[in-house]
């Protein structure tokens, strides 16, 4: 796959009746959805037409560090860079791309720079099921329609620094409360991406269950029936949604309250239930029920006995292991090919989603409770005062890799570290 992506300033209408100046990939927010197959070579010709440095980080993909778009590889204004990588076998899933410049990721994503990347498998067990992509983001605007980014020293700046920039306007694929159509009886495959800086989504459709079939790194071994699903920042989920409604009826995708907050700055309206999406049933007669495969694929376990070391990461509020991020410091060093256990301890009273660049991992346990089933993850939410352990194999790609909190305000403030793999 060979594409050209241009990041440039643009003016779009995000909210009714207002024109907003922002940034966009190829003039669109979200940017173009890229699709390719496992094994494909991907060449992205990137041009930075922004007035500032940027990168494209291919969130979740297992690719060379030189193409990871980390802060170590900024693309200067007015210059180009070719991201070149091959999509690995077994990595079919839902990914996304976004800027990752030093201390400026949150602002650039807030201005509109994010897009989806679907990696497909030739032997996809769910092939043929209609797909919908649901990219969740939120934003805040001033009266005149400009994007409202609080002054760091202001009261709102303090709240955003603590909670992350959580905003009242919630967008689905760049639209406010859009309508999605479904046929009665139809099964749809939803790929959901949380592209919000800080908002965590707890998704549900009233009165029906969802089949949770995949995470960050693709499909599970077996579908899991759930009533609701939590999607932390930068996480992805794949769901099978059954059209259980009658012809012409309407339902909604809801965002349920989730208390990720510090007790000091928990919003007073945090318990509000909001509708993200209207689900409109067509007038078609009900379709015949579709069988959902009981088995999706095999996920080989990473054996904990192969781990050569356990690293401990202590998450404070805005820093890791007591340290703010420093581009000139390597915090952790590892050896290519090693299997390691990472123990992430959140010692503060709010959740922090922990993201590791370049390598998918398997969660072992959360507060000592074993993970009920295997999946591939690149981000794991570490709830307040809890400990998550995961296992990861550092295969293929040496270099400097970032690990950080994916609340963008925290990441930009320095809640990030550098892991160098040799």
């Amino acid at each position, binding site marked *: 796959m060979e594409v050209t992506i241009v990041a440039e300033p643009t003016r779009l209408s995000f909210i009714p009746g207002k024109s907003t100046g922002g940034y966009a990939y190829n003039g669109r927010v979200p940017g173009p959805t890229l699709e390719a197959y496992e094994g494909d070579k991907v060449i992205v010709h990137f041009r930075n037409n922004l007035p500032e440095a940027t990168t494209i980080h291919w969130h979740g993909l297992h690719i060379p560090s030189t193409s990871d778009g980390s802060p170590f590889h900024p693309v200067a204004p007015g210059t180009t860079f070719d991201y070149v990588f091959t999509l690995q076998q077994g990595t079919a899933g839902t990914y996304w791309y976004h800027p990752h410049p030093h201390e400026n990721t949150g602002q650039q994503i807030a201005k509109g720079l994010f897009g989806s990347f679907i990696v497909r498998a030739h032997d996809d067990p769910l092939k043929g099921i209609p797909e919908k992509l649901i990219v969740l983001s939120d934003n805040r605007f001033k009266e005149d329609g400009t994007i409202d980014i609080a002054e760091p020293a202001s009261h709102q700046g303090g709240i955003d*620094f603590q909670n992350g920039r959580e905003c009242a306007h919630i967008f689905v694929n760049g639209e406010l409360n859009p309508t999605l159509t479904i046929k009665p009886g139809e099964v749809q495959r939803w790929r959901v991406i949380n592209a919000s800086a800080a908002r965590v989504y707890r998704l549900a459709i009233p009165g029906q269950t969802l089949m949770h079939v995949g995470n960050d790194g693709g499909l599970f071994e077996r579908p899991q029936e759930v009533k609701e699903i939590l999607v932390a920042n930068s996480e992805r989920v794949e769901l099978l949604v059954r059209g259980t409604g009658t012809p012409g009826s309407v339902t909604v995708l809801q965002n349920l309250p989730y208390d990720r907050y510090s007790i*000091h700055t928990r919003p007073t309206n945090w318990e509000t239930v909001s509708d993200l999406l209207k689900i409109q049933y067509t007038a078609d007669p009900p379709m015949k029920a579709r069988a959902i495969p009981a088995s999706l694929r095999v996920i080989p376990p990473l054996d904990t006995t192969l781990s050569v070391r356990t690293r401990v990461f202590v998450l*404070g509020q805005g820093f890791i292991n*007591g340290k703010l991020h420093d581009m000139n410091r390597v915090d952790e060093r590892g050896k290519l090919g090693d299997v390691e256990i990472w123990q992430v301890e959140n010692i503060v009273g709010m959740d922090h989603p922990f993201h590791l660049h370049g390598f998918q991992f398997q969660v072992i346990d959360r507060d000592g409770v074993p993970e009920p089933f295997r999946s591939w993850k690149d981000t794991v939410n570490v709830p307040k005062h809890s400990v998550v352990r995961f296992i990861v194999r550092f295969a293929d790609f040496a270099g400097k890799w970032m690990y950080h909190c994916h609340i963008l305000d925290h990441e930009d403030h320095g809640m990030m570290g550098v892991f160098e793999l040799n």
Partner: protein
Amino acid sequence: MKRLISGSALVAGAAIVLVSVTAWKRPDPEQDKAAQIARGRMVVIQADCGGCHGGGVDPSAKGFLAGSAGPQSEFQIGECSIANPAAKPCFITRPKNLTPHPTNGTGRYTERQIFNALRYGLRPSKTPDVEITGTTPGKGNFPANPQYLAPPMPWTSWRHMPDEDLWAIAAYLKNGVKPVDNKVADSDAPPDFWASSWTVEKVGPYPAVPYPAANETGTSSAQIALGRRMVLSRACGDCHGGGNNPAAKGFLAGTTTKQMEFQIGACSFADPAAQPCFTTRPKNLTPDNATGMGRFTERQVFNALRYGLRPEETPDVEITSTTPGQGNFPLHPHYLAPPMPWPAWRHMSDEQLKAIAAYLKNGLKPMTNKVLDSEGPPNFWATAYTVERMGPFPAKPFPTENEKQ
């Protein structure tokens, strides 16, 4: 001279000068007294005497040490609580006038009577000016029916200060503070004058049990020994558990009962339902990784005590400013919740604060006790901890308008 040598860094420096001078010159009693008063002043500030007795930690503040200014300075002691203000018994106690006013202050007492109050909890108005040589009522000049200072006066902590500090406090109160005419009504007291509140079982022994007690590691150094003495003499355990007895259950292990919690804000005895009302909870100070201080560095503990910065929300850096956003001081500082008296503790010397951190991290055994997060306002108490409210750091030089040379 002995009393000058083990004080704070400032006074210790003065002592070294004096020692070298006295090697070939006669001692100067006036200079000796001035150094003692300076030391007493620093201890009074560090120990937050003004937090209850008036003026806080700023010697230039109105009413500094002049005693209760009215109902807002009074305490309700007994069964009554915010949840049940009508419960009995409920004694009203009032911080006394500590300035040397001849009739309404400490002008009535000798320095020894003040020393005896701080070391033994004996009310100076009810205890003769004698050297106390025992702690058993009726023996060695200890009164047969001792009348003790009223709670919450933390004399059971202050008594663990070295003799030099207690004498220095007495010297400062008598000689370094101007008299203020403020008559404070007597505090209520039960018929035993609190004798049943101040038993060894409740407040631990004096002197404290030798190191290491059951809750302590035995890792020893001069720094840990100093830290232990500071922890005992600054009442850490009064809120964080175990009182001033390192052998007590739950020593410094944090909140375990509702009674250990605080209600901070507009709520009060008069109006328990008033808002805002934040529940704050003393934390687990033992070095447990999951629930205590195990994941904090000694520098983070130091920064908590010196700057009031919550260690879990402030990186492990040297702070070189007190202006938000400058010199590693956070742009949005997240302060420890009241009533943690860090605005007073910060006046301890670097050596003392580092010693406390060293003791907590290395001298205590880890205890697992998960304390719920304290509540607080969205600004993490920033408006509670302004210079106007807690005075400058370092304190204004001696003498301020409330003081005399």
